[in-house]
């Protein structure tokens, strides 16, 4: 649920990067922070959580323009997947306006991806969000590794594994080189904008 801040004339919303440990959520955010410096507001907060890092920063996507005279400000988060980080997950996922699900293309991570997606579904449900309704895009990450002789899953197979039911926009990517990172984020922003517009209109 986006928050309208009348004082600053801003609409604040949240995009959460979700995925199995080491799938590249953090690398995605680090790349965005570096490559879109002008739009980044403030420092990147990085918290070392067991096995993974939790990142956060504010982002002002210029191309979105104004909504009812308000700037749209986006908070970007990654969320630690482990069960024990319940309070952190709750704070991050509660009221998320958009989700980027990052999937690992390595063949050996196939099961981890599916588990992470199931987990996301379960977690969203706990905070009264439906995986079918929340603006969601997918990124099939680490495509660059095909050059390094590592077995990757085909995009078709990943679609089949993860996106058969959801049918959300998905993009091949390489967070390390930055390929597809901007595309993924933009797609998520567009979906998010649509849903906020709908929300605002409905609410009068």
């Amino acid at each position, binding site marked *: 649920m986006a*928050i309208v*801040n009348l*004082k*600053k004339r801003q609409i*604040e919303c949240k995009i959460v990067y979700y995925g199995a440990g080491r799938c590249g959520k953090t690398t995605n955010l680090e790349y965005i922070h570096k490559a879109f410096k002008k739009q980044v507001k*403030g*420092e990147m*907060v990085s*918290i070392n*959580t*067991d096995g993974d890092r*939790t990142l*956060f920063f504010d982002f002002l996507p210029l191309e979105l323009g104004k909504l009812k005279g308000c700037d749209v400000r986006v*908070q970007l988060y990654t969320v*630690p997947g482990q069960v*024990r*980080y*319940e*309070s*952190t997950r*709750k*704070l991050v996922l*509660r009221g998320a306006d958009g989700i980027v699900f990052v999937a690992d293309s390595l063949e050996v991570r196939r099961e981890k991806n599916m588990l992470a997606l199931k987990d996301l579904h379960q977690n969203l449900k706990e905070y009264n969000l439906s995986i079918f309704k929340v603006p969601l895009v997918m990124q099939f990450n680490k495509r660059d590794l095909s050059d390094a002789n590592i077995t990757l899953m085909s995009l078709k197979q990943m679609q089949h594994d993860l996106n058969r039911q959801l049918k959300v926009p998905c993009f091949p990517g390489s967070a390390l080189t930055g390929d597809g990172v901007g595309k993924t984020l933009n797609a998520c922003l567009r979906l998010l904008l649509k849903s906020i517009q709908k929300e605002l209109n409905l609410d009068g």
Partner: protein
Amino acid sequence: MAGNAAFAGNLSFLNLGELIQLLGTNGGTGILYISSTYASQPGLIYIEKGNPIDAANGTKTGLDALFSLFGWIDGQFEFIQEDITRQNVINKSRMELILDGLRLLDEGQVEVLGPAAGESETEPTVAKSGSVPLIKGPLVDYSYVVDEEGFYNGDEIVQEGNHGNWIWVILEGVVEISRETPAGGALKILRIGDGAFLGSVTALLKGDNVRSATVTAVGNVHLGMLDSQLMTSELANLTIDYREFVRCLDERMKQATKMAVDIYAGDKKIADFVKGKKILIKQGHAEKRLFRVRAGQAHIARETDAGIVPIGCLQKGDYFGHIPFLDIGQEPYSASIFASPDLKLSSMDPQELQREHDKLSSTLKNILAHLSTSISVTTLIACDFYNKVFAGNSK
């Protein structure tokens, strides 16, 4: 706390992370007061233009204090707008503080203050001021206070073993509850403060009551005597099942206290407590049913790192299982139930008890809520003693 709060509410609805986020969005300047029934004094967070710049919790200040407050999962908050002239000693971004604070909470690195329950695995601990925990009660409903009495520091208000039916509410001040130990001498168990109750609800059910502990004033204490007659007739209008439930709750309190004293005294029988008994409810399992003992015994024990700590023994007529409207910090989440070989049970409908409970006046509800908190805290105290006496860990 002053009554000019700009924003106030309950931490169980809005946790500290969400609260700081909200105040941050708003860019407010002022002091955030947080109070918990499990802590003797409120925690403070100084906020300037939406960013925490300093905090205080007991002897802790700055970042340490701020992080420790993330453990207060149950309590009240009040934000009072005012100019802040303090130095910024925290110097970290709001979001970093929130995410780091929650991480510490999730990793169990900050002490959790709240009811000893929930499905979480972290063991809650009691706020220690001095060495004896302090429990405060809910807001006093003055319509039940028929008389007021004052006591001075050191006055004995109630003496263990005496007969007495009065129930008091503490209007102001703190009293200490102690019990005789088998070796002689009194063991200080806990302290209770404003809004807490003295006396046993059983007195309202039976009419005759033996005091189970000694109560002494710590500093000047102002007590309000409650209208027993009114409460007795109120309880008399409820079902027998509910009255039995209330009796059983009071009995549990007495047993937990007695057990704490026995453990403290190093009673050897304690080691054999669960021997040869079958486990009926495993601690931490989501048991949604409520039972009543028809014959035999059901033993309550909490499993801790130091071993299995006995808490009490339920007899014919007693209840155990999931109680939806009160949190006593024992089974099913925070204690196990062990059955004697001849145990016979019947299943009860918690909804029926709930309906009766909903009919109660606020004062009786408060008394029962306070009783539940006391059971929960006394259980923790028993575990703490156990850890010291039997496992040899003196923290």
